[in-house]
């Protein structure tokens, strides 16, 4: 996992896109299986443990088979029918679909979770601004704003208590929710304004159009391991698609 962990967050983002895009565009059990198996083999080889996988991906590990069950029971019937009652038809076709859906969910979900896990927001911002050249004001503004989320959650709790204290706690929950949503929005704007002032007081946005003059305390670099990560992701995706094509199970979502 050190290969992934030390890679630039931007690369991790890109690798996840590369490996999952073919799966989003296709629906077949063969390419999903190949990609999932290769992914797991590579991740375990790179040091991922079963425990760590379960801890970070357990909701997915539960949800993916459930998605398959839906398909198994209600998927478009085709081929030999194994069982049926009322609307439920378990057929060769629906079994295939169920497998494909479950495998696809896992093959998309696992690498996304593993690659994103532990991405540091500040490092991602550094990468997006310095390497992808997104506008610095936009990236840093977003980065600073996500820090407000915690404060707003605390505001919400405090306001719930305050409303009870003021005699407004007995009103219909939906009405109270709407009222509080508005109030928390007002507070969010005020907090945002304060933060913006604090950022401006530290010279943020002071250079107007002269963007080039901002420097970055932390260098965001691409190295050999980033190239490796992207190449591996591309190879995994290509292998999956290739095998799907070769054995003729490949099925584009639009066809």
């Amino acid at each position, binding site marked *: 996992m050190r290969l992934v962990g030390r890679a630039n967050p931007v690369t991790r983002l890109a690798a996840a896109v590369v490996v999952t895009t073919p799966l989003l565009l296709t629906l077949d059990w063969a390419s999903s299986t190949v990609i999932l198996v290769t992914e797991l083999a590579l991740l375990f080889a790179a040091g991922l443990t079963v425990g760590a996988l379960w801890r970070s991906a357990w909701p997915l590990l539960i949800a993916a088979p459930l998605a398959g069950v839906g398909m198994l029971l209600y998927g478009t019937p085709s081929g030999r029918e194994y069982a049926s009652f009322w609307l439920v038809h378990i057929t060769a076709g629906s079994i295939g679909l169920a497998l494909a859906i479950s495998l696809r969910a896992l093959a998309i979900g696992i690498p996304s979770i593993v690659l994103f896990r532990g991405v540091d927001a500040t490092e991602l911002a550094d990468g997006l601004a310095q390497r992808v050249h997104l506008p610095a004001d936009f990236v840093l503004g977003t980065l600073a704003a996500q*820090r407000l989320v915690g404060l707003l959650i605390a505001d919400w709790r405090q306001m719930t*208590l305050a409303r009870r204290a003021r005699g407004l706690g007995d009103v219909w929950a939906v009405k109270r929710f709407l009222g509080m949503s508005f109030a928390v929005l007002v507070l969010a704007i*005020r907090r945002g304004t304060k933060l913006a002032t604090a950022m401006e*007081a*530290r*010279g943020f946005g*002071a*250079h107007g159009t002269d963007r080039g003059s901002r420097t970055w305390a932390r260098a965001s670099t691409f190295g050999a391991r980033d190239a490796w990560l992207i190449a591996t992701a591309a190879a995994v995706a290509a292998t999956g698609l290739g095998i799907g094509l070769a054995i003729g199970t490949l099925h584009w979502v639009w066809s």
Partner: protein
Amino acid sequence: MRPARVEARGWGWRHTGRLRWALDGLDLVIEPGERVLLLGPSGAGKSTLLAALAGVVGGEEEGEQHGSLGLDGRPAAAARGRAGLVLQDPDAQAVLARVGDDVAFGCENLGVPRAEIWPRVAEALDAVGLDVPLAHPTARLSGGQRQRLAIAGVLAMRPGLLLLDEPTANLDPEGVAEVRAAVGRALERTGATLVVVEHRVSTWVDLVDRVVVLDHDGRLLADGAPDAVFAQQRAALETAGVWLPDAALPLFDGELGSAAARSEPVLTAAGLAVGRERRGEPVRAGLSFDIPAGASTVITGRNGVGKSTLALTLGGLLAPLAGRVEASPALARGLVPEPHRWRSTQLLTRIGTVFQEPEHTLVARTVRDEIGVGLRALRASRAEADARIDELLDRLHLGHLAHANPFTLSGGEKRRLSVAGVLAARPPVLVLDEPTFGQDRATWLELVRLLRELVAGGSALVSVSHDADFVRAFGDRVLRLDEAGLHIAAEVAA
């Protein structure tokens, strides 16, 4: 780094949508290296002046100005970075998640080369005495540490002018001492010009060499050496709400309420464990104590020790995580004894809670409606509600603001409004969380007088405070909360 020179010539500023100029016709020169304490009543435009000097008061859409305000001969708005501003709210200022990155943020914006940034960060953290690793999360700093971080972030930019806007108003006494020491050390090293705004003069008086006083209309009232200004302007300063270092507070005799009332508990806690989250870890546990009826109880203790959580639990707003809080039958008036099980409107007429942050409690569009919120919830008649609101507007000096939007009031006014909103329903028990936080002397005295009247009139008061003067004025019964639990620190014999 050169210390900066400030020059205001007939300068004034008016916020968009306001009739009154926040500052008007200000003539002021601050020479390089001078250390100025800026005083004045709330609403005198002190914060506006600091923001303008830092170049962050805003553009034409935010307000209009006349005259000139210069920093080293350049308009202040064009000299951003020459002045470093530290604000009051420790929460609002940490921009990034890690200490080192946050201090570096200003340097990055000023275009300091990377190789130079990190030595500056180390130097700035050293100057404020913040001895934590660079990767330490900013969210895990105490209030005092966070303010020192904000100062370090500004120092790393090497400003010629350090602007501090009530940097210690939200801190406990330890935090205040930390920040004061950090600023002293930083000025010694950099020789920067200083302008600090603060109501409590004693914190800064030894550090400054000049005092500038603004009046309510944002004009210059007095200017000179601290001792001379304090001697000449004592009366004006006290009316303006400034805390002079040696000013005696009007004597508030310790005893409030009658001995009989003190011997009778209105709230009783037994084996109480308090916490914000139902299933979370308790902040404090095993607390057993009484709150006497018709007397004042003050709960003190460090920041973060759980005082506010305890207050909210006593106020019937948080359920105890273990143990019980029980109201006396006289308070419960036929309801179950546990206040947290009462309905919101039942609680309203029994226990009133004044929150630390008034903004969390604001729900109406005008000051008048805000005071009437509880009365409407209780379905009081129009005439009755109007009479009560008028009475409170008058008593808390909010009459001239009756139709203003509560969010636009000053800190002191918002505090008075939040007290008025609670008093409207006449609860016999009042719980106040840091009622004097960041208040000027005038608001402070008014609040103390009002609260003492309430106790004298038979109300029970429970206040959480680490304001030593407040504790002295309400010293009937002082409970100290710390890691070991709740102790009686002082008590008038029943």
